[in-house]
């Protein structure tokens, strides 16, 4: 997913305040206008790709048994797949405009409802994976950047390369075998122990367990988050650490850092206040991109840890040629990624005064 560059955000200090607001509104409108063709592109792409993939949902329903051509035609008509492709696409778009993403071919449930059931699990896992990646990746990158060439620097670079190249499936199973089966410290998979019967009111297990007042349920849910968060957060952790290091290296060579040092500021202040703030720009971009990756790309982690999220759902829907679920799922995920990127663009201005003050 490409981050769309921000362009001018807010006016200089000297300009009247309302002019700044106007620019901001103009900027927002422009960004929203750019989203519309993106959406059309997404619907067109997902629709045509999933329909181009060989495979017939009706044959998959019948399996080895096979069905007669008459029954095949009847089922196709029931699913609306007998109409010309253009008509099917037009129906799909009409549905979206009416807020209707259709019903799953397999479960016969509305796609939006299925998404809402599964999305909190993905969001909860992605949130913790990102926290894990940022909490470890940011300091590791900063220290590696400041102590360039040291043993710590080499270790961070080596480990992050290993983390980045790690096959998720292997890594997940390794952690399960060591921590869950051998040591017995963490649960193997799932979101909570089978002994707790928690109602999925919000879908966020931590919140639901707190609301349930069942003793031990919250701790159980938290323990179930540990391994999947580590596995899902490994690649973002590696990316964030490497990006923070290289951004720090670049910023530390800037004139204003030398000036700050010359002024006699403490090394801590030079690094944390003057250097880090500027180094954070590309890091935030990367974090934003990784959020998108986490939301859409947790498929393997969700499969290993039997995590009931949207990634696994979309892949299963592709395998079953469940067209409405694939189209709706990808559209919803894409919308979220676009929103995250928009938020990232906004954040630049907050973090970096140079952007905030430039036209």
């Amino acid at each position, binding site marked *: 997913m490409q981050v769309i560059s921000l362009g001018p955000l807010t006016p200089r200090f000297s300009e009247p305040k309302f002019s700044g607001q106007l620019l901001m509104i103009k900027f927002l409108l422009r960004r929203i206008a750019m989203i519309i063709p993106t959406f059309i592109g997404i619907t067109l792409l997902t629709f045509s790709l999933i329909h181009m*993939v*060989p*495979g*017939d*949902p009706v*044959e*998959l*329903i*019948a*399996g*080895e*048994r*096979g*069905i*007669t*051509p008459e*029954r095949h035609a009847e*089922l196709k008509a*029931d699913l609306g797949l007998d109409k010309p492709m253009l008509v099917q696409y037009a129906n799909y778009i009409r549905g979206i405009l009416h807020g209707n993403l259709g*019903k799953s071919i*397999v*479960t*016969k449930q509305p796609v939006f409802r*299925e998404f809402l*059931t*599964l999305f909190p*699990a993905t969001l909860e896992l992605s949130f913790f994976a990102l926290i894990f990646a940022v909490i470890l990746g940011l300091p590791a990158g900063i220290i590696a950047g400041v102590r360039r060439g040291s043993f710590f620097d080499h270790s961070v670079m080596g480990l992050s390369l290993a983390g980045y190249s790690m096959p998720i499936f292997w890594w997940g*199973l390794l952690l*399960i*075998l060591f921590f*869950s*089966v051998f*040591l*017995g*410290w*963490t*649960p*193997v*998979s*799932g*979101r909570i*122990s*089978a*002994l707790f*019967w928690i*109602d*999925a009111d919000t879908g966020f297990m931590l919140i639901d367990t707190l609301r349930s007042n069942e003793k*031990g349920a919250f*701790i*159980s849910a938290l*323990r179930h988050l540990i391994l999947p968060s580590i596995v899902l957060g490994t690649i973002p952790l590696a990316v964030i650490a490497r990006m923070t290091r290289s951004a720090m290296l670049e910023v530390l060579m800037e004139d204003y850092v030398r000036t700050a040092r010359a002024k006699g500021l403490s090394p801590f202040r030079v690094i944390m206040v003057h250097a880090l703030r500027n180094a954070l720009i590309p890091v935030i971009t990367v974090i934003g991109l990784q959020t998108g990756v986490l939301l859409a790309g947790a498929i393997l982690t969700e*499969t*290993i*840890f*039997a995590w*009931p*999220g949207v990634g*696994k*759902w979309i892949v299963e829907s592709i395998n079953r*040629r469940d067209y409405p679920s694939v189209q709706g799922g990808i559209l919803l995920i894409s919308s979220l990624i676009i929103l995250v990127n928009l938020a990232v663009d906004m954040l630049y201005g907050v973090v970096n005064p140079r952007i905030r003050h430039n036209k």
Partner: protein
Amino acid sequence: MKRLKLLMMLCAIAAIALAGVNADAKTCVYCSEGSPEGFNPAFYTAGTTFDASSRPIFDRLVLFELGTTKTIPGLAEKWVISPDGKTYTFYLRKGVKFHTTKNFTPTRDFNADDVVFTFERQRDKNHPYHKVSGGNYEYFVSTGMAALIQNIEKKDDYTVVFHLIRPEAPFIATIAMDFASIFSAEYADKMMKAGTPQEVDLNPVGTGPYVLVQYQKDSTIRYEAHKQYWRGPAKIDKLVYSITPDASVRYAKLKAGECHVMPYPNPADLAQMAKDKDIKLMQMEGLNVGYLAFNTEKKPFDNVKVRQALSMAINKQAIIDAVFQGAGKIAKNPIPPTIWSYNDKVKDYPYDPVAAKKLLAEAGFPNGFETDIWAMPVQRPYNPNARRMAEIIQADWDKIGVKAKIVTYEWGEYLKRSKEGEHQTLLLGWTGDNGDPDNFLAVLLGCEAVGSANRARWCYKPFDDLLKQAKITSDVAERTRLYEKAQVIFKEQAPWVTIAHSVVFKPMRNEVVNFKIDPFGGHVFYGVDIK
């Protein structure tokens, strides 16, 4: 030193905090392999769906005795078949209670209205419930029920009569299948009046041993024992399906004590499972057959000698060793040995490349020919690795001069193209639905099935006549004789190379008692206890 002590203390605290909670004695956790497509078994054909719906929640008029393919009375105490074989009168069991759930409290016991509702919903296209929830009754249609049942008559509250268009010997076995699970007509009426008919399929009410309490998609299904179950309440109070798609993770959960029973282990893990002192590994021959079908409509496979020669050229034992890793048995008949009428007297073609080459020369192909082998892209109990199997067959045929190219397609495409007869030879298989020989022989090799499940496109009148005769004969001894004869003809004509019947393994923790392997591949927890 102090630091080391502190670290050790912290580790100990972490270990205590992270230690697992031991399972309650009467909760059974089953690590199922996937999510059900829904909870109305009439709509679907997948075993995963039946495990979560028809097996715990529902009963049928006729049931299969657990662990066998024998039919026993279920919600019907007994039945009488008219001499012409066209009328089936079912006498229903009294005092059977439906589940009480959060949106339904039954006011009456199970009766004839429920039977009529269940079948009429599937049969009558004008029934108010026919189109609810999409309304595709795949099994009802494909087993021929839609064309077979003339009408269903309620004689009194506890007597129902099925009038058939023609005699149908496998009828009792067919209505013991999952799609014929009995729903509550009273619940359906209530939901229709409330304007939410689809609730009947989403939050089902049955008479089965377990009540559905909660379903969290792709995560867990929770059931509680039905205290007023007509066969006596289940010994397990709470049954939890923990949905775990990956076989290695299921095994890790079983080892860690997070689940009691798991299905579909990786063949590579079986040896380790057998050694594990906390786990017992049950096994049973599966009700299935894996085969290679010749497209008998295409040359040279229309020539019986070619089919026989190629059958002789395949080393089946090598396939059992390499593909099934020992967890399979060589198949000589198209039906597995666990099905009645299996003809053990049939002699399989021996593995004999020299004789095969000679026979091929007799058929007019002394230098062999070129062909293809279609290999399925998916794993199935009857064929865990079709690609590997195809490679072995390719090498075997190469020895007699037959050059085969391995072809594969995406699964849906594979099924579609093979149904249309594009292949020359293909690998496929079948798992039985109801334990009746007709469910293998007529479904897969009957003339009517050409263009659907008969991938050999083999329509051989002497064979087909025997099947048709057996289908209208109610005398089991006579049917057995006819099917035995049919198997002899099948072997002579060799439309398939029957390759293997797989062995099904069920790993479970030692504390699980009375678990019986279902020959249909299902997982049934009624009767199971936890020590």
